[in-house]
């Protein structure tokens, strides 16, 4: 398990650009010859994208709720009404 955790951590560091230039080059060289690792990297890259999409969806819901909340404030609502009258 420790090896798996370390590998996932290392892939994260690579994808999040937290490796030094030297370590990045070494990692990319490994990717050229290790298809299994390359596959994991691409899957983890996609996982990052999915997590971000999940987070955006939640945050959009939160922002819609804030908008509705502010519309209940008379001054805010009147300003918008005046602008788009």
């Amino acid at each position, binding site marked *: 398990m420790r090896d798996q955790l370390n590998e996932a951590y290392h892939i994260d560091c690579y994808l999040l650009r937290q490796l030094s230039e030297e370590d990045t080059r070494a990692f990319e060289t490994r990717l050229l010859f290790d298809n299994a690792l390359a596959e994991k990297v691409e899957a983890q890259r996609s996982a*990052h994208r999915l997590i*971000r999409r*999940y987070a955006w969806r939640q945050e959009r819901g939160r922002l819609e709720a804030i908008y509705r909340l502010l519309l209940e404030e008379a001054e*805010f609502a009147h300003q918008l009404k005046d602008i788009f009258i």
Partner: protein
Amino acid sequence: MTTQTQDPIIDLYRDSFPDFARMIRRMGGSLDEAKDAFHDALLIYMEKEKAGQLQVRSSRKAYLLGTAKICWLHARDNGTPLPLPENFDPAEAVDEGAEEREQSLLESLVRSGRKCMELLKAFYYDHCSMQDIATRFGFNGRRSATVQKYKCLEKVREEIKSTQTYA
């Protein structure tokens, strides 16, 4: 009369959105367009703030209004909303079916393991520490939370491989 709230995003929203709406109205846009672009800009703002990458030169409001204007112009000219993914590569956007497959995969992952997605969001998006995650999700400690995070990540990776979303 407006009141200060505990949530700085609400205060920023209240203070900034009417000015942005006025700007978009002058440029011929609608209230819905203004709101969508403003929310895109707030997403970018909040994401950068969480990641400690927010660099505000003048004021938070000016930063937000500038970003929102770019989002609105982008949506008007391209028909697609911002924000774009980090390290966006136009070559990756050629496959129009990928978007739908990814959306479908996300729905499936949420259905089968919302807690896992919450945990991964806490780590990768909210940048919570493993100790915070352990406390929030009821794990025994950092080590236990780290193992669970790995298992959740592995589950997502396996699901991705099986659907070949990244192909």
